[in-house]
């Protein structure tokens, strides 16, 4: 199962960077998230796996697709900067390759292999354990991260907020408070003679 997920993951990740259509690339990224969630669940990290799907696939990628679909992307213009960005990109790529080589070839470089972790007992709840750790041992880092995120949200909203001067704003409270008498007037009228209609 691991090999299957890993193969799909590598394929999807490759397609993310090689797909010509940005929407296809975003959808392959979704596939990559789903398969990595599958791998995590196999590693007995159900909470992380489901949270990955919930947060990244369910929310972040939807907004991503939203933006990518609405943009009219000119592919030729995107390619223009290829040669000027190549040196920086190559350095980053080389660094990544070196790091991965260090990890994968750990035994050769004297990194001791970790023993296989024991399987969790039957009644073990991944979610409960994670919650206990976050809210007791790691409560300060956790709250710090939360505050930083909150600041980021406030900043993002402040940057994009603009008041339109000529917008006709409707106050919903006043709308709801409207009664029939304010809008409709019933006028009593005498009955007219039949002959008048002709």
């Amino acid at each position, binding site marked *: 199962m691991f090999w299957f997920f890993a193969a799909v993951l590598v394929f999807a990740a490759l397609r993310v960077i090689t797909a010509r259509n940005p929407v296809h690339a975003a959808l392959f990224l979704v596939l990559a998230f789903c398969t990595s969630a599958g791998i995590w669940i196999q590693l007995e990290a159900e*909470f992380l796996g*489901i949270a990955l*799907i919930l947060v990244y*696939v*369910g929310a972040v990628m*939807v907004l991503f697709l939203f933006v990518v*679909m609405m943009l009219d992307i000119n592919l030729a213009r995107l390619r223009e900067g290829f040669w000027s960005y190549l040196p920086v990109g190559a350095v980053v790529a080389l660094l990544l390759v070196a790091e991965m080589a260090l990890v994968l070839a750990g035994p050769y470089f004297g990194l001791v292999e970790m023993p296989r972790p024991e399987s969790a007992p039957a009644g073990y709840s*991944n979610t409960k354990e994670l919650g206990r750790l976050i809210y007791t041992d790691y409560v300060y880092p956790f709250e710090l991260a939360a505050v930083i995120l909150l600041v980021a949200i406030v900043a993002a909203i402040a940057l994009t907020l603009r008041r339109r001067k000529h917008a006709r704003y409707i106050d919903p409270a006043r709308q709801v408070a409207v009664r029939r008498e304010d809008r409709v007037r019933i006028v009593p009228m005498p009955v007219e003679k039949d002959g008048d209609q002709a």
Partner: protein
Amino acid sequence: MLDSLLAYPQEMLGPLWPVVWTLAKILMIVVPLMLCVAYLTLWERKVIGFMQIRIGPNRTTFFGIRWLGGLAQPIADGLKLLVKEIIVPTGANRFLFVLAPVMAIMPALAAWAVVPFSPELVLSNIDASLLYLLAMTSLGVYGVIIAGWASNSKYAFLGAMRSAAQIVSYEIAMGFALVGVLMAAQSLNLGEIVRAQQGGAGLFSWFWVPLFPLFLTYLISGVAETNRAPFDVAEGESEIVAGFHVEYSGMTFAVFFLAEYANMILISMLTAILFLGGWLSPFPESWGVLGAPGFGWLLLKAFFVVSSFLWFRATFPRYRYDQIMRLGWKVFIPVTLVWIVVLGAWMQTSLWIWWK
């Protein structure tokens, strides 16, 4: 009895048995579900007919038996859609166009894996089933946006954009409502959540009493999540023809339809499980058969919720888009946040009486 019946195929299939047995169990859920969906469409047309003082479908029958008038309608509709041609528009992205209905129905069916029908009857009793449900329902939006984009049509695209924004917004309120439920139940497992509602007070020991604002929020967000009237701007007929599935015909359209109704049944089932006590009986245990917990109660509650969906559709005019967004972000999310804090404080005091 069941064990002895199952012994023979178990022996015959050997190592393949678990796979076959799981598939059989999945079929046992999906087939009745599809039948429910079919007859829900009939029930919807009948209910709206009654409310508007007309008869609704009453012509199609089985073998011409008159008092069955209308009962064959879903079968006839299904057959019609099945034999119709599937048209892929020029300029549409063929692969994604066909993939979209699949993406719509897959999460609607996959979510049923963790729904507990009775104390013992659940396909997969996983620990984080509430989270799994949230994840699955959040995947449903992909069917809509892929359909809108792949159709290469402005109307479909506008419908998809509206629907995606709406679903993502209401999911937040829904998630917060579920946070309240898991606080009160102290578990993410749906079975445990139902068991936590097992109090001595019958009807009043269910979570809809202490979590009343969350219950309402969940119910209304559920209507918005499934793109049902009065929140059906994704397919507002008067503005954008039929929304994201305007280019779909035949069975591909039918699959979208199935997904919408399967989602409706799922949301009603979940409302029944999370807030209305699942399989528990509303009567005290001393009442014999009426007081016993069972699958029937869950079905009855879900039926009640699903019928109220139809009732909403027949009653309310459609919301305007900005009003939908205001309701989601400025009303529901603050309400749920405040109630979670209230709940947290309440649970620390001795006034909290919803323990087992």
